[in-house]
């Protein structure tokens, strides 16, 4: 169906179901309950889940398939963001032109960076991409201030000269919209103690992510995807089979750059502002973490990794000592304090430490990331019938 095998189609349908029902799934705890702080079903965070999902899916097309480790992908995301906000400032606050331009500009920029960086491989490639990204960051911060707004970045203003639309009635700043449907508008549903928010911006971003995900499945399963895996596996044989690896890797690089640009454009569509820190190398490092954590070279892994990191960043990081004391309150006082002291460094503000440890664990023990972990667990339980059948068959990237 849709040109996919049965297995891939079920995976796609699973992701469709998860993203469409996310406002329910992510808000499992009733409002006001002690567990409510673990609810992730608010628009802002849900948007981030899917946008970084797109970013990671794109990164995975490059790293997961070809093995080229880029440490500068945030530059493309940033460039896409700047392109999008200019479109909104000059043309219209409708998000379509903004996103289209974001993808095109990011694609062109990644074509230049990729063309140069791909002349080297291995660590040299990583350093070159890093150097380009840091340069873009520094320039956005300083020289290009007229274009980027420098340190403060760019926002929408009511003084912006939008050619295709008139200023909103009664002054005020017009908001990002899709043919009048504003990204910020939400519908709230209250069911007993539960509260669910359905946000326009989230659903639009989610649909874009589903399209991006579907496209990545097609790429993974295409002869092009097979060639990319072949390059990763043995570049020498590739050359001696009459194939030129460079255009393949460059195409993968540009595609992943365009994914990053799309993510950057969506960020602006959801929250109409942009600053240079979006291009800093830590942002590039983050997408590396997401992809590896979820499972590089797997289809669903990057999305899971993005979700996990964003969840930790926004939810786990908010747990403070008082909350911990409540959790362990059932224990005797001394043990309670001990538990809190032991657990506290790893959550709340220390969530990065947990992330670093999990990441190291994944690199050391689970090169296939969370997806491989899931498969191993599934195999453990499903031993006997399913597992054996699966082992004898090839298990291509899921």
């Amino acid at each position, binding site marked *: 169906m849709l040109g996919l095998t049965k297995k891939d189609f079920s995976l796609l349908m699973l992701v469709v179901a998860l993203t469409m029902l996310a406002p329910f799934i992510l808000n499992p705890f009733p409002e006001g309950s002690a567990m409510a702080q673990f609810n992730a079903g608010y628009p802002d965070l849900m948007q981030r889940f899917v946008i970084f999902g797109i970013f990671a899916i794109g990164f995975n097309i490059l790293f997961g398939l070809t093995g080229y480790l880029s440490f500068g992908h945030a530059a493309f995301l940033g460039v896409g963001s700047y392109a999008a906000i200019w479109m909104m400032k000059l043309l219209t606050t409708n998000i379509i032109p903004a996103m289209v331009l974001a993808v095109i500009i990011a694609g062109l920029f990644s074509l230049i960076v990729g063309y140069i960086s791909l002349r080297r491989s291995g660590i040299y490639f990583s350093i070159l991409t890093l150097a380009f990204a840091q340069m873009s960051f520094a320039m956005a911060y300083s020289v290009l201030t007229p274009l980027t707004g420098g340190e403060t970045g760019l926002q929408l203003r009511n003084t912006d000269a939008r050619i295709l639309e008139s200023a909103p009635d009664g002054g005020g700043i017009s908001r990002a919209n899709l043919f009048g449907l504003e990204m910020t508008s939400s519908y709230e549903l209250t069911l007993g103690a539960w509260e669910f928010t359905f946000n326009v911006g989230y659903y639009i971003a989610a649909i874009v992510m589903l399209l991006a995900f579907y496209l990545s499945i097609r790429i993974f399963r295409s002869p092009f995807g097979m060639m990319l895996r072949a390059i990763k596996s043995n570049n020498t044989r590739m050359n001696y089979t*009459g194939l030129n690896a460079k255009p393949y890797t460059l195409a993968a690089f540009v595609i992943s750059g365009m994914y990053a640009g799309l993510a950057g454009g969506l960020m602006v569509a959801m929250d109409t502002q942009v600053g240079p820190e979006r291009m800093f190398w830590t942002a590039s490092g983050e997408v590396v973490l997401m992809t590896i954590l979820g499972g590089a070279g797997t289809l669903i892994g990057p999305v899971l990794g993005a979700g996990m990191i964003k969840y930790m960043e926004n939810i786990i990081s908010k747990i403070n000592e008082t909350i911990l004391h409540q959790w362990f309150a059932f224990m005797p006082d001394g043990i309670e304090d001990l538990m809190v002291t032991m657990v506290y460094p790893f959550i709340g503000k220390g969530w990065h430490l947990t992330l670093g440890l999990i990441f190291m664990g994944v690199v050391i023990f689970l090169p296939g990331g969370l997806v491989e972990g899931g498969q191993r667990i599934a195999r453990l339980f499903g031993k006997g019938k399913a597992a054996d059948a699966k082992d004898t068959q090839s298990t291509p990237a899921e």
Partner: protein
Amino acid sequence: MGILEVKNVNKRFGGLQALGDVNLSVAENTVHAIIGPNGAGKSTLLNVLVGKLIPDTGSVSFEGQSVLGRKPYEINQMGISRVFQTPEIFSDLTVLENMMIPIFAKRDGAFRMHAIEAVGSEKSVIEQAEHMLESLNLADARHDHAAAMSRGNKRRLEIGMCLAQEPRLLLLDEPTAGMARADTNNTIDLLKQIKDERDITIAIIEHDMHVVFSLAERITVLAQGSPLVEDTPENIKGHPKVREAYLGESA
């Protein structure tokens, strides 16, 4: 005029004369072996033929066209395939995928982007690949990872991948090095079968005299970077110069 003509090729590495005035002509549809003691320049010559090294002087032409200065993938597209000393295959891919890639390359050239259509819909490519695997007796392993195969089967697969491109010249670099006797014999049989079934020229660099004398129709002996003699296997066997070259090495 042979299919492959090497004329007056010289190659120095620093002070070392790796190839000195090499002239070689490989006739079409023959099996031509290049033998010689260690350090005779066999690998250097091979690397010149596939475009990995550029000689200091001289010319190398294939079917009348110069190969010098071309990239390995371009030379491959001219119709020269190479089998490596240690099998170079796509270990992370399945056996079937390994076989499909040269077929794609044959069909599409150095680069063509099929990014949307599924591999599974390329029926004719799959069919050709399966057919090829069957003729190599590797069909049962088609969904295994290539890395999981035995050394002998990796060699078979690599040779098969080269043949799938329908090259007019097949270069083999010590194809049985490090192989057990049974695998060596299997490889010899496979190469004999190829020779009988196809219009193909085979140039083979080999150490193992058993392999050389089972296959070769012409033999060139290299010593210290230059061809010593070139003749039929019968005449090479008792040739005093050849004995000297080999004995000189062992003494």
